[in-house]
């Protein structure tokens, strides 16, 4: 994630480190798109964030950058406002969500989740198998017109998945907190990767279950 050390203000040509506003003339600047999300939001680059502060920073920056406030501005100002706000929104969306932030943190370390991300993680095999089987039952029951049975089954599956997700998230939060003191431990990295793929997998599964329940009230 390299970005230039200094940039030149489009209005007054002042050279400065990348910033939202030119330190010399205060004109809004387009941030280099490679800049990291922590810098966009102006918070410490750490895998654990203070959520209240994150939201406060997001609101403050929105109040200064949003395109609504540059409607009467020049073409350069409008473009900078649009691009920066899009970047700010993406940064906030990523950092406020624990698994997203974890994944982003890995990317910042030059790590990626492997291509075999779609394979069922070993620890989840039993649960996944059970859920798939139950979903099949639910579909059959629906065809047979046993709607109340379907409803109870779905509720049960949902509860199981949510419980599992919650415990994985707790483990993820703990691992991310450890990262601060124990920066490069290969075991920590492996743990983090496993947790993230498990969460990603469960989220997809959970989406399937939600879809099934949406069919319920869409009828």
């Amino acid at each position: 994630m390299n970005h230039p050390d200094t940039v030149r203000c489009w209005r007054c040509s002042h050279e400065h480190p990348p910033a939202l506003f030119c330190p010399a003339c205060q004109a809004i600047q387009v941030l280099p798109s490679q800049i990291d999300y922590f810098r966009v939001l102006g918070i410490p680059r750490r895998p654990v964030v203070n959520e209240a502060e994150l939201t406060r920073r997001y609101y403050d920056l929105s109040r200064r950058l949003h395109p609504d406030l540059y409607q009467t501005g020049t073409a350069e100002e409008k473009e900078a406002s649009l691009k920066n706000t899009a970047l700010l929104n993406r940064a906030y969306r990523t950092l406020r969500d624990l698994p997203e932030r974890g994944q982003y943190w890995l990317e910042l370390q030059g790590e990626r989740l492997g291509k075999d991300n779609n394979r069922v993680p070993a620890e989840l095999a039993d649960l996944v198998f059970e859920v798939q089987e139950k979903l099949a039952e639910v579909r059959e029951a629906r065809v047979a017109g046993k709607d109340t049975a379907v409803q109870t089954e779905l509720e049960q599956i949902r509860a199981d998945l949510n419980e599992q997700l919650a415990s994985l998230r707790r483990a993820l939060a703990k691992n991310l907190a450890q990262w601060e003191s124990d920066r490069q431990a290969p075991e920590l990295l492996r743990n983090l990767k496993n947790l993230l793929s498990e969460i990603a997998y469960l989220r997809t599964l959970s989406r399937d279950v939600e879809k099934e329940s949406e069919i319920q009230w869409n009828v």
Partner: protein
Amino acid sequence: MERIVGIDLGTTNSLIAFIDEDTPRVIPDPQTGDPLLPSVVAFLADGCTLVGQPAKELVTEQPLTTIQSVKRFMGLGMEHVTGDDHRRYRFADSQGIVRFTVHGRQYTPPEISALILCSLRERAEAYLQESIHKVVITVPAYFNDSQRQATKDAGKLAGLEVIRLLNEPTAASLAYGLDKKEEGLIAVYDLGGGTFDISILRLHTGIFEVLSTNGDTRLGGDDIDQRLAERFLLAGLPEALQHDPRVLSSAQQTAEAAKRALSTAEGTRLVLDIPDQGVHISHTLTRREMEDAIADIIARTLAPCHQALKDAGLSPRDIEAVVLVGGATRMPLVRQRVGEFFGRTPLADLNPDEVVALGAAVQADTLSGRRRDMLLLDVVPLSLGIETMGGVMSRLIERNTTIPASVKEMFTTAVDDQTAVDVHVLQGERELAQDCRSLARFKIPIEPQPAGVPRVEVTFLVDANGILNVTATDLRTGRERSVEVKPSYGLTDREIERLLEESIDFAEEDVTRRLLIEARTEADTMLHATEKALRHHASLLAEGEEIPLLAAVQALQEARAGEDYNHIRDLIDALSEATTPFAQRIMDTSIQEALGQKRLSEL
């Protein structure tokens, strides 16, 4: 600072509002004082168009050429047109963008909406005594990209600069927030004439942050009217009459009036009387009967409410205030159902018909730079993505992402020397491309290279209007490449240009036609008077006066048959001059007669 006004371009009614010394105000019709402009356009046989109340009055008389609820067709393709629509209107094609056929001419929904916008603009210009160019137009939050684009096109066709498309529930929250200085979590339930929206917002120190939105762009008061018409008026009629456009539109109007009455009364009379078709129906409808007949329509609004809450990670009890918007929320059953769902009595202190327009005016004030104390953070209502291998929808921007939002995708080639990559943009929540809405297709031009070598980065940016913009950059050359996006259900830029040119031509043609009609009318009056004078007062003609006078009459008659209004005017003047002495003599004589044969000079 140029003024920006707010427009609520509604399915049933449209409004225009402005900020009058910090207070948003709706501009009423100068004649009737009515703040609502019925969103109805009537095309007359002589080529003129009527908008608003006069058009609405023609609905039952000329249903095929009077277009109602055009908003329901914005950004849609012919495959979305229902059987009922086909019974009600004539359409030009069986596929592609919707085009109405009226008096042998074709009109797209944006063109018809543009006529409504022009009418609102005239209203505002007359009231404010200044010309209006810039507007904020509201759209249902759940409008997809094509529907938004169509609304923007309507603005362009009306000669307006659309500064912002604003989501209707968000606009309503602005009007409420302004009023109440609310903080906390609110839900805006907006049931309009043709669309339903639910938005969940967090209000915090002047920031209006939309957490989630959901809805149905084909669910509204119109559906209720139609149900009542079918169940209580049309059901007893012979099949042929049930499909008759005049019977259908009368039944719908009767149903609408009954629905309104039943918001306050417990019972009303339904009367459908079309003597020349032998239709006479009259019976009593109680509120209870109506509610039983439409309960399922109201129930359909609750699924989106449920989904929006879930997407925001909230439960109904978390909501601290529920705001009702849209005329249909006046129905007691709606209030009851919404109240039950959220477990609290909904707020309806602002006029549900006006609140969206008022909010649009507030946002226009911010956009014009006058106001900086409130800020809207809105979301994209439906996921955006592209079609990938095997016809799968690959989501790039998830629904309920705060806008502006952007995402970059890398594209490369699959075979050697490929010169373009085709991209198919989709919107929707389904897994397969075929189940999502096709928004547009475009080609990324690529310089011939071995397969996999070219690297083109495509940026998908959803702007603050909720409209998608696409740019492509060739990473090898660093050159930005323009992509021409072909909308699946919209007008191309070229088509808009052509329509704009035509509308200018038509405007000229309209003026010409009007001047010609006026000149002919005046010529008729003149010819008639001259002929009468010659018949009754031939004795008063001076020597040698008759021949040039008859020549002038004949010349005017010939000119009248032609199309040149200037020529007609010239000859009216010529005839008037030729008859002046004669007319003077007639006048003198009449006065003399009246005064008992006294000469003028004696008076």
